[in-house]
């Protein structure tokens, strides 16, 4: 392959909902499994839309929408086994769904009631990481741990196209390669890092960077849930079997703003979004189900009703989320007592009491 060869893209389901073959990847899904993927996609989009609405109503400080990236997240997330460990950025609400993290727990960070909200070990899903790229090194270290304690799983780490420029991410590639760590680097290239298009980060398709580090890279249609599932499954299997890391570049699109505080009209043209809407990750699965008579209207209605209920439930539970008490600030900073902090806590409690009397 020459450096300027056109990038190859693994696709198993076209935007029109046609199943296509790929020489290296295939997937055999029962109708039930396809319906289940469809349900996942619809429900996580609904969670996301609800969160955006909650932010608009002042219930969340900010929200980072996954709109458009559902297939990349559900496909890769459903490729994980219970033993696998996932390290997300701040946008992996779909992966969180696959790891059985209660959606309301995702809201805590964005509502400003906590910095995390779930126990990573309980879900094999690490906390969200806001500092771009940091988690890639944690993930490689975790994978090195699996190598050393004889665990069964592999590790997957999520990051963005922008993150691919960070030193930490490049160091994580070196580490993973040198130690042949059981890890999958899952880069969602959603074409944008806030206002900067991918051209500001890379002159070559991102998946090709892997070659230089000594492990395989593959670009997958990030809006194709079948392909994302197949490619990630294979990469995780390779990792578990001792074949080391893989970089997966999920080629997708951030359909919404970077976050609810961003205004993408300042830096990108509307026609780009329109073009990507035709590649919607959910519509193609729906078309596939319809065409092949794997689901009827009753099924689609039921999923919609479930999404409606999930949204309403999330809304209610978000608003009901209790505010932290001021004293919570002093908790968990250290694992055991700490003189100065304890003094500050006592003094501040006394200070607050002064207002009550």
């Amino acid at each position, binding site marked *: 392959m020459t450096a300027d060869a056109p990038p190859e893209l693994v696709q198993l389901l076209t935007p029109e909902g046609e199943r296509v073959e790929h020489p290296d990847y295939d997937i055999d899904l029962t109708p039930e499994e396809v319906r289940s993927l469809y349900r996942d996609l619809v429900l996580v989009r609904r969670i996301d839309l609800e969160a955006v609405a909650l932010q608009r109503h002042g219930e969340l*400080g*900010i929200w980072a929408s996954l709109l458009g990236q559902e297939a990349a997240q559900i496909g890769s997330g459903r490729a994980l086994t219970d033993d696998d460990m996932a390290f997300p950025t*701040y946008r992996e609400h779909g992966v969180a769904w696959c790891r059985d993290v209660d959606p309301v727990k995702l809201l*805590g*960070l*964005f*509502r*400003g*009631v*906590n*910095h995390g909200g779930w126990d990573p070990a309980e879900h094999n899903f690490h906390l969200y990481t*806001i*500092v*771009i790229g940091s988690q890639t090194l944690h993930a490689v270290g975790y994978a090195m741990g699996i190598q050393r304690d004889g665990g069964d799983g592999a590790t997957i780490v999520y990051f963005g196209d*922008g*993150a691919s*420029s*960070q*030193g*930490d991410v490049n160091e994580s590639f070196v580490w993973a390669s040198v130690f042949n760590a059981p890890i999958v680097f899952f880069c969602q290239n959603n074409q944008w*890092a*806030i*206002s*900067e298009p991918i051209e*500001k*980060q890379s002159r070559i398709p991102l998946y090709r960077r892997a070659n230089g580090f000594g492990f395989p890279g593959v670009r997958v249609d990030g809006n194709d849930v079948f392909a994302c599932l197949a490619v990630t499954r294979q990469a995780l299997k390779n990792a578990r079997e001792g074949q080391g890391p893989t970089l997966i570049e999920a080629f997708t699109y951030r359909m919404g703003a970077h976050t609810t*505080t*961003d205004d993408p009209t*300042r*830096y990108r043209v509307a026609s780009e979004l329109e073009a990507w809407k035709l590649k919607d990750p959910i519509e193609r699965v729906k078309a596939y189900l319809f065409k092949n008579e794997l689901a009827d209207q009753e099924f689609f209605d039921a999923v919609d009703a479930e999404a409606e209920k999930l949204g309403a439930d999330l809304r209610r539970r978000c608003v009901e989320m209790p*505010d*932290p008490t*001021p004293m*919570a*600030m*002093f908790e968990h*900073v250290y694992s055991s007592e700490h003189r*100065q*902090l304890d003094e*500050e806590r006592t003094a*501040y409690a006394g*200070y607050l009491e002064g207002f009550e009397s």
Partner: protein
Amino acid sequence: MTVLTLSKALNEGMRKAMEDDSKVLIMGEDVGKLGGVFRVTDGLQKDFGEDRVIDTPLAESGIIGTAIGLALRGFRPVCEIQFDGFVFPAADQIITQLAKMPMRALGAIKLPIVVRIPCGGGIGAVEHHSESPESYFIHTAGLRVVACSNPADAYSMIQQAIQSDDPVIFFEPKRRYWEKAEVDTGSTDWWAPFDQAQVVRQGSDVTLLAYGPMVKTCLEAATAAAEEGRSMEVIDLRSLNPLDTGRVFESVRKTGRAVVVHEAPVTGGFGAELAARITEQCFYHLESPVLRVGGFSTPYPPSKLEEHYLPDLDRVLDAVDRAFGY
């Protein structure tokens, strides 16, 4: 005179610096087309082009490291770090290279680089977006560290920082970006040296020492205290390294009491440095120990709790009361 917000004043200041000196460059994440997430560089790329206003790859160490190279080649980069919490990936380049290279070259190298950092809390943000990391840089010899608190200072100080032949860490109080005031952009007669502190309110009973976002808080506290007959002098330090000790000591010797206010945690914070210097130099004038009001010795809390973490008028007045209790 024009009325400018603090962010627009910075923008106008940078624009002026770019017009005056073709070697001045702007670089950072999203500073070009978007004009920065706070719009501080709004319109500059449109007017000065992509060679002078550079949307960089997403890597803070890269931003500072390449700025050093550009400076070696005679340019004067003004680097934006998008949020305070993201300066740490650049800490290596700032602390090990930027701060020390000129001295290693026995003065043969100058690194006229400005690192702009929106700092502080109070905007309801998620973690790493509300930090006050000034102490790390004050602690590092070779860096000038300044903080603006109002539009006029923002306008003049950013230009002075760009003109300085030393690296300057330039803190911008993000929750004050939208504060408005009159700025005289037509003359430089009113400019004070950017390493000089300013007495922003005269008083006789106690000196409040603040910088950046806390200056406004202290001024409000002084107004409230005046109603109760207590006269507070408020000093906007503006420069944290070097420190304008002359003005600080003069004020404290007059009032006999000093309270330092900053958002950064008190532990190992700049208040400790001030307290030590004041105690050494004004010992016989002090009626009470120098007291500090600042963030707690905890990570910056989730935003629902930030009003507890951040010093406010009540906590400043409480400290003043305690100072009078000695």
